[in-house]
């Protein structure tokens, strides 16, 4: 079975799911235990530590955007609580109205 998550860079404050992670699942990241707040799919990100609105989201050791809401460690980090610092994106519901 694949490991639950991967930490891509030591500076990262998110980890990437290597498989679907179930709500309540305990995951060890470099010896620190985090608990998945909800079911999160392969390729999606979990907060490695508590994050606040305005914090940079760090993946690959680089900023991939800013938090727009507070979130606890183990929470799902995605477009509902973070945004690009460069340019907007669109979702399917925005396209189909």
């Amino acid at each position: 079975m694949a490991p639950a998550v991967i930490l891509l860079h030591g500076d990262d404050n998110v980890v990437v799911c290597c498989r679907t992670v179930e709500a309540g699942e305990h995951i060890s990241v470099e010896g620190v235990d985090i608990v998945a707040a909800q079911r999160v799919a392969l390729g999606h990100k979990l907060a490695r530590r508590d994050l606040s609105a305005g914090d940079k989201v760090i993946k690959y050791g680089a900023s991939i955007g800013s938090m727009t809401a507070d979130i606890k460690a183990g929470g799902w980090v995605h477009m509902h609580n973070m945004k690009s610092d460069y340019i907007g994106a669109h979702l399917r519901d925005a396209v189909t109205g």
Partner: protein
Amino acid sequence: MNAQGYLRPDGRKGIRDVLIVAYLVECAHHAARRIVDLADDPQVHLVGFPGCYPNDYARRMMKALVAHPNVGGVILVSLGCESFDREGGAAHAATHGRPVETIVIQQVGGTRAAIEQGRAAVKRVQAQMAANRVRVPLALSDLVVGTICGGSDGTSGITANPAVGRAFDRLVDAGATCIFEETGEMIGCEGPMAHRAASPSVADAIVASITKAETYYRTMGFGSFAPGNAEGGLSSQEEKSAGAYVKSGSRPIVGVIKPPERPTIPGLYLMDVVPDGEPRFGFPNISDNAEIVEMIASGAHLTLFTTGRGSVVGSAIAPVIKITGNPETWQRLGEDMDINAGAIFDGSATLDSIGEQIVDMIQAVAGGAETKSEAMGHREFILTYKTFEPSGPGCFPR
């Protein structure tokens, strides 16, 4: 490498011997498609440009394609009243030693006559191609390889894309020419990329191309970011960019080219795909195949296509090798995928072992082995309106 290529009269070497049937306006599309369908030959491919009004970029792209090293013969199908320079296109193919015929629907008497004449033209051009055929040994240093990602998700930047980067490093070290692209998907990576430039002028060209891309996409209203990217776990343009950028590997970037400019010496090139000037014709590239066609026009013999969500496309003219980084996509769409970089997740493969597998497959495909998309009959092609200024001398290796 144990592969035989096709030597062209201009000295370039191809890995396929394709007859292209090109419609020069949408009004000639049906006749051209029927000519290709009736040929019933996997090496007869349909290409074309739908627009009636002139476009210098499309004209130069089509000229590059009729003289592409994978192309052995050409049939142009014109309605007759469109603006495309069919005589110039035919003359260019002939100058490069390709047998070429032109069918003008309004002159030959309509759809039925054009299709009949097209069928006969296919036979004549095929006979000429057979008579012209010269096989020569191929080395990796003869190859131009492009890479693109499509249907990216949160796995792409971890598995498939860095594995292609490892393959690119091996190819560059072997003297091959490699092209990576979509400057709009490199927004946020301009700093590290400029550090890899082989010269200060190339570093300037890299930063300028990304600045242009950001301005252009901002005018369009959003980045090169599809809903499926978000469903696959990507949350921002710069997150997608960081994952896409690693396809380029780690070797110096020797130049920045615009389609259909050709690399001047072997090495790694960034392709600047974003039009110059005020946004005029909409999105830089409306779908993945528009980018694949641009790399082909710049000389790519084949393309490495990484995908997370699972693209199924191939291409006219040049084979596409599809590499998925997502083990679930490999399970679901394995029939369409050539390589499973998702195996890195469960530890049964490494970035280096997948990189090696990619280079092995490039050599096999160059030698004639079919990719999954070729076997499935995929021959996608799209060419639309764009505007480019020529690249300055500082964009190329000294």
